[in-house]
């Protein structure tokens, strides 16, 4: 999995490409930790090129959300593919994240 992180004034955008499965989840976790360790806790996850998320991936995002909220920050999700979003909704975990269809809205509202 390829992951790009872009630091803006208001937030950081993390943009993973590919599958967030048990192989990719630790990489995503490392990318998120790299941001939060700088004391930055507003993170927009650009999911536009994520094709799959397994429970291993959701646990990473849930953990990150808990940590960021503790630090007055937040993880918001943007541009999630329908299948991925449906599976998140199925387990009721879509309530844990603000989800935006556009990056501009995600970055503007975090």
């Amino acid at each position: 999995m390829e992951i790009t992180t872009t630091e803006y004034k208001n937030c950081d955008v993390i943009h993973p490409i590919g599958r967030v499965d048990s192989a990719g989840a630790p990489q995503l976790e490392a990318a998120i930790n790299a941001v939060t360790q700088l004391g930055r806790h507003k993170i927009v996850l650009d999911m536009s090129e994520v094709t799959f998320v397994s429970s291993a991936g959701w646990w990473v995002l849930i953990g990150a959300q808990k940590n960021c909220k503790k630090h007055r920050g937040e993880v918001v999700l943007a541009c999630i593919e329908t299948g991925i979003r449906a599976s998140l909704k199925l387990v009721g975990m879509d309530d844990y994240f603000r989800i935006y269809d556009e990056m501009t809205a995600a970055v503007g509202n975090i």
Partner: protein
Amino acid sequence: MTSAVFPGRYTSLESISEFVIQAAQHAGLDDAAVYAVQLAVDEAATNIIEHGYGGEDLGEIGCQCEIVAEGLRIRLEDHAPPFDPQAVAQPVLNVPLEDVRPRGLGLFFIHKMMDEVQFDFSPEGNTLTMLKRR
């Protein structure tokens, strides 16, 4: 029927996905159903590696896909010790974020995503048979 054997490691998950996605498409499943199959198989294969073999590169995962009248039947095979699926507690869902505990979503997904799920354990190995209707 197509079948393949994969090394029991997390980097196999992508190849396993590709293998079942192709079968699911051939079986005429729609996009939502293809994603469902991908998710169920990924969770099951992860469990075989993590809980069955207890780590990476300790055994193989066999995968068979069969297009049947109802849709797609998938069989995952391993030679790890058996376990009791009935004994596994349901995940705690719909609780406040702070109370979420990171466990137990895999089997839940498998059951939600597939129409039939059956675990069989025998001295020759374990089999998980799943059916996704068209």
